[in-house]
């Protein structure tokens, strides 16, 4: 790879892009969808009783109800109670043996069975690989994305001159290049932020393992403790359940501006049990502060994520900055649009390279068909899995079906490229989205407006895409 700096940068950009583009596209697409994963969870299970709040007494009752539900099973090591909020106005109690929704009085009203939403989250966070390796791979892909940004800027000498040029009604190759460059340039701060925070989260286990070996005799908890707090030593001797209600009341009295989001009970029903309340702080990037309590609800104090060491605040901010859940629906919508932009940049990048090959007579029909399957077949499969989840129940192995079907479709595209024309795949996807939204809307027409809003938005977007596509090809 010789030539000018720009040519070398373009070569490096293309090489990294071709290596990672398919996986990067899957992560970008699933990440875009799960910005509002709580809303998808409601959409997936729209007929669950909802509640705007859970009183401290109801939270206490929810804990007891979950332990009654688990009777006869090994004691749970942790118990989590998610408190309702605007995105998910449902209480959820989770133990080692499963998760259940609870109503306003803390009584169990149904199983948390959002396996399709969890499938999307798993695709984004670890590509359904064994968790540790998958998270590391996704973190490494975040680094590759950051390197793509750097080489992309170096390969783009006319970055300022072309800043607002989008020739989308010219030759498709010119339009593709403009989409790739313009969206890439203007979403650069967003892409760098999500790429590096994603890499921070994904590769964290490697760094902490190294630090643990160097400074703590291999004990990871000792490395995490200065940031996320210490875990008291367990004591398995039996004890009465902890007083969560008192702990929640203490948070409301001592930190009235904080909004509790989670209650975590460690080793419930043992002498070593203790309680943590995670509470959001308005107008902060941190996901929340963790307040620690003893079993009787006695105040032990905050961990320091809100106003402790800078490192603690930075670590606690990385998650919200990555997932876009720090300023309500407007920022979530912006993250979805920027995420779609990243999908466009990823898709057009490889398409540009494939088209250049074809125009130079280097072939590539099979590769182009495979790429079309990745770009349009993946969302189509995601829609198909929503149907499968609805028809066959939440215990269907969605990840296995997804990867098998995607591999089969790519193999079929390589064998018979003419079966997978771009336009047909796009049209089928739009039709599938319209059908799904319409059926959901009709079946669950009595569901809350914010659930049905998803159907209306999907419907509108699919119809608009179909109309624009037909107008362009006319």
């Amino acid at each position, binding site marked *: 790879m010789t030539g000018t700096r720009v040519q070398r940068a373009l070569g490096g950009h293309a090489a990294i892009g071709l290596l990672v583009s398919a996986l990067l596209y899957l992560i970008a697409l699933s990440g875009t969808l799960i910005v509002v994963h709580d809303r998808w969870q409601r959409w997936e299970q729209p007929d669950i009783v909802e509640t705007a709040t859970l009183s401290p007494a109801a939270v206490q009752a929810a804990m007891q109800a979950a332990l009654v539900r688990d009777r006869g099973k090994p004691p749970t090591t942790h118990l989590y109670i998610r408190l309702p909020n605007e995105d998910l106005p449902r209480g959820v109690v989770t133990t080692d043996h499963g998760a259940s929704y609870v109503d306003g009085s803390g009584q169990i009203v149904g199983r948390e069975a959002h396996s399709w939403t969890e499938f999307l989250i798993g695709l984004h966070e670890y590509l359904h690989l064994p968790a540790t390796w998958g998270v590391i791979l996704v973190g490494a892909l975040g680094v590759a994305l950051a390197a793509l940004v750097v080489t992309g800027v170096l390969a783009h000498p006319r970055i300022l001159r072309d800043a607002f040029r989008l020739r989308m*009604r010219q*030759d498709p190759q010119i339009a593709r290049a403009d989409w790739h460059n313009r*969206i890439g340039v203007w979403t650069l701060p967003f892409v760098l932020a999500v790429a590096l925070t994603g890499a921070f989260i994904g590769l964290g286990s490697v760094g902490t393992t190294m630090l643990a070996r160097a400074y703590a005799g291999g004990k990871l908890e000792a490395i995490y403790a200065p940031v996320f707090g210490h875990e008291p030593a367990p004591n398995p001797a039996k004890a009465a359940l902890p007083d969560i209600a008192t702990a929640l009341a203490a948070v409301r009295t001592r930190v009235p501006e904080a909004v509790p989001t989670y209650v975590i009970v460690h080793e419930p029903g043992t002498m070593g049990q203790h309680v943590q309340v995670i509470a959001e702080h308005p107008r902060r990037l941190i996901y929340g502060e963790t307040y620690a309590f003893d079993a009787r609800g006695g105040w032990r104090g905050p961990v320091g994520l809100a106003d402790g060491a800078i490192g603690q605040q930075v670590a606690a901010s990385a998650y919200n900055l990555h997932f876009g859940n720090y300023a309500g629906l407007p920022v979530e919508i912006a993250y979805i649009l920027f995420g779609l932009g990243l999908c466009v940049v990823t898709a057009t990048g490889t398409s540009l390279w494939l088209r250049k090959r074809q125009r130079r007579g*280097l072939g590539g029909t099979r590769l182009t068909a495979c790429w079309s399957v990745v770009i349009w077949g993946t969302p189509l499969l995601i829609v198909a899995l929503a149907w499968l989840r609805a028809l066959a129940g939440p215990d269907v192995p969605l990840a296995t079906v997804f990867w098998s079907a995607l591999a089969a479709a790519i193999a079929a595209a390589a064998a018979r490229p003419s079966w997978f024309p771009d336009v047909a795949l796009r049209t089928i996807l739009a039709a599938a989205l319209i059908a799904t939204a319409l059926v959901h809307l009709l079946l669950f027409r009595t569901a809350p407006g914010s659930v049905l809003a998803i159907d209306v938005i999907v419907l509108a977007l699919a119809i608009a895409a179909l109309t624009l596509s037909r107008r362009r090809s006319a």
Partner: protein
Amino acid sequence: MIAAALLLILVAVALVRLGWGGRRGVAGAGWALGIAALLMLAARDGAWGLAIGTVTGIAAALAFVLHAGWTSPAKTRRAPREAPAILLPRRWHDLGRRVLVFVLVVPIAFCAAQWLAFAVQAVARRAGAGDADTMVMTLLLQPILWAVLMAWQMTRAGPARMVAPPAAAALLGTALWCAA
């Protein structure tokens, strides 16, 4: 206050668009106004303010780009027949070269970045930084350093020249480790 700062950011992006390709002073004023508004938000609401200001700015810029696309004239100009930036390997030698590049850019650069990040935290620890700060610094620095190394390597002409970036990082890491 927040609304005013966000409005200023919208005005700033509009000025950048107005000055684009024409009056550079207007675009410069737009950039200056945007930075001032971001600083206002950061001063008032810290990282949260900076984040929502940046999101607003990106959204506004994308709106202008999409508008430019929507109003762009339809032409039949053909794109030039450029050569693809890289070619698929066709011989064993090419494939071996790609594997070598992969090894240099992925596992070797990863380890070099990890070592340098670890050494930097050791220096910070020696200088009195706390456990939380040094731990998070290590985790943040590693991907940043790896991305820089990756970009640096991938803009070199050939695998031989790709050795220098991770080697330099590893040497610097060793020097810092010894100094700590």
